[in-house]
Each structure stands twice: as C-alpha cells, then as structure tokens.
C-alpha cells in the first residue's frame, strides 16, 4: 500500500459513451472511472457491451462521448497509449505458422517496454519450447505464450477479454496465479471480463455489471459485501420481509423463500431469518433477470 496520493487520477475516465451497431446500442450513456492499482471485473451477459467497452478503451472502434485512458484519447492518441496498455483477447490470435521464438522476437522488435529475459523466464516453467509453432500448441499453451509475452511488458493497464475462455480449470487457475504473483502491483491496473465469475470474485478489487450498454452496478468488492445481504426468510415473516423491498425473491422447497436486499441493515434482516452474503454469481443472476426474455 502506497502512502502517496497520486493514486487519485483515474486510469480510465469514461463519460457518456455511446456506440450503436445497426439498431442496437452497445454503449448507452456509459459512464465510469477506473482507479489505478485495482483489478476490475467487467461482467455482463452475452451482448451486453463488455467487448465494445474494452474496444473503445483500446481505441479499436469509433464511438461517441468522452473517454480518457491514462490521460489520452484512444481515438487520436492510440499509438502513444499502446506503450502503456496491453491486452489479451480471445480473438487476438497469433499466426499459426509462427514459432514461439519468432513471436518473442516480434514483440521485442515492436514494443519498447518488452523485457525479453523476463518473457523467457516465464516460459521456462511451461512446456513451451522456442522452436514450437503456434499450430502445434494446445489452447492452454497458446494462452501461456500470450500471457508470458504480455507480462514481460511493463504496462500500466492490462485489459483481459475472456482470457481463459475454453481453458480447463488447471490452466485457468495457473493463469490468475501467474498474474498475481509475477505481474500485478499497485502501479498496475487490470480489467478483466469473464463468465467464470465465481473463480475470480476474490481476485477482484472492484466490480462492474453491464447490461444493454449501461453500467448497472459499479462498486468496490468491499462495498458489495456490505451492501447486499441474502436472507432465508421463514414463511411467517414473508410480509415483513417484503415490506423492506427486496431486489429479488425466489422460493425454495419446504416453504422457505430467499430474498436479496440492497442496503438494508444486516441487524434488521437477521430478525427475518438466516442471513448470508451473496456471491457475485448470485448477484449477477438477480440483477440480470429477464435479459434473454
């Protein structure tokens, strides 16, 4: 934890972003800030606008609104910005004919902040060999290569769009383990999107839910733990519980009902039944109800 106060300037500052594809809004007045030294999870159903938001941050698409990334406009200052920003996307494919050695050489040639020895050290712990071609690698190994290349760049912002999609659980764990042990520090910021919410919820310092291009939840994980409470309400307390305006309600067998509350004091809720803190996945399901209806 750094005692200095330079942590106040946001890494990303987005105001009223708007992006329409045909007749659907992928970003609809989207406004948010991301502080440095945080690990932010951007979570939303398919087609909610996650990837569009990330593409805007990376300067890959045109859009309307005001966006500053590390103080720069990604639309007009993308080249400068890319010295300090890295990303891994599920769609970012390495050419299949390329050898591991050539991939390292390529990044080393184009990126001024790439530390080749560091990259080789990361790869040392894997089964990847310099002469291997991308087409011989499994999906998990390709991600390992990607991660080693990206972690060897001393960037300020790392954007991960579904980085572990299609990987088995061992590779997924290893991915975040490497990131936390060898990469992340309080000078860096990571934004990650994933559908495997349960697996990363304790890694996150902040979370954002996006739905239909709008940010519907934006909070530090700490606040989430305090704000939301789930109560297993006894049948005789149903009316009293409903009066406190739960944001979600579902019934369980044996006459019990689970209600989710936002910002109601835990002590008040304890009188209604057993309480617990919902996981991000529970919150997500409650918030996104009716999305595909």
């Amino acid at each position: 934890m750094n005692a200095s106060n330079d942590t106040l300037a946001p890494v990303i500052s987005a105001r009223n972003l708007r992006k329409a594809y045909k007749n659907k809004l992928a970003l609809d007045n989207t406004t948010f800030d991301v502080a440095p030294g945080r690990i932010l999870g951007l979570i939303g159903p398919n087609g909610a606008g996650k990837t569009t938001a990330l593409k805007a941050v990376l300067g890959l698409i045109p859009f309307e609104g005001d966006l500053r990334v590390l103080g720069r406009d990604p639309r007009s200052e993308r080249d400068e910005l890319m010295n300090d920003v890295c990303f891994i996307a599920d769609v970012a494919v390495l050419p299949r004919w390329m050898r591991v050695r050539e991939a390292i050489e390529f990044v080393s040639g184009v990126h001024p902040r790439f530390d080749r020895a560091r990259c080789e050290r990361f790869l040392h712990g894997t089964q990847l060999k310099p002469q291997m071609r991308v087409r011989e690698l499994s999906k998990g190994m390709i991600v390992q290569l990607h991660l080693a290349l990206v972690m060897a760049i001393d960037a300020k912002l790392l954007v991960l769009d579904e980085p572990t999609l299609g990987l088995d659980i061992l590779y997924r764990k290893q991915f975040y383990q490497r990131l936390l042990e060898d990469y992340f520090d309080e000078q860096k910021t990571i934004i990650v999107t994933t559908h495997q919410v349960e697996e990363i919820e304790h890694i996150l310092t902040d979370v954002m839910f996006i739905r239909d291009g709008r940010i519907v939840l934006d909070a530090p994980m700490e606040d989430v733990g305090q704000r939301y409470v789930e109560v297993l309400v006894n049948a005789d307390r149903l009316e009293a519980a409903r009066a406190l305006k739960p944001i979600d309600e579902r019934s369980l067998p044996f006459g019990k009902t689970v209600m989710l509350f936002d910002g109601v004091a835990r002590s008040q809720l304890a009188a209604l039944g057993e309480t617990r803190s919902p996981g991000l996945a529970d919150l997500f399901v409650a918030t996104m109800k009716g999305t595909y209806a």
Partner: protein
Amino acid sequence: MTAVQWSDGAPIYRQLKERVVAMMLDGVLKPGDALPSVRQVAAEYQLNPITVSRAYQELADEALVEKRRGLGMYVTEEASRKLLASERERFLREEWPLVLERIQRLGLSTTDLLQTAGGAK
C-alpha cells in the same frame, strides 16, 4: 493447487487473518517465523493483494506480526503470549458462562469438579 473454501459470512480478509491466528495458536507459526509474502498468498489463494495486505495489517496492528524492512512480515516474540491472553479473555467472556450454566443445571459441586480435575494438575 490449494482449494480454499471461504465461508460467505465474514469478510475474506478477516477470515484470512483468523487462519493465521489459528496457525499461531496451533504452533504451526512460531515467534520469529516469516509469513509468506502478500504476493505468494494472493497467488496461492487467488485473492486480490489488497485483501491479503489488509489481513496482514490487522495482525500488525495487534502486534502479532511485525514488518522487517525489505524482508517481510514476521511473527513477533510476544504473539503467543498476546494470543493466549486474548483467548483466555474470550473463553471467560463467551464460553465459560455457558459451561457454568450447565454445571449449575446439573447440580455439580466444587468438590465434584475438583475431584475430576485432580489428575490434570
């Protein structure tokens, strides 16, 4: 790969702190022992480093661990004494009244109790 189950009641940093305290009470962590680095714990337990720092900070605030510059966190010499004191206090405050109530309900006398405890001296 360590699979740790966190309960969904208390905040994670508090649970992590309790784990470290339990290891101290069990003697797994002794005075002078180093705690693993924030990074190692974060990576191993898949927690964000802020959570881990916060748990370590609370342990430091209670003088159970101390920071040695450039080296990391170490269990203090007085950690076991402090923990013993606070555990004793907790026992007397939380557990003992329940035990006492049960003793009274069963009508056990001081003599009965001392007889059984005699061998444990």
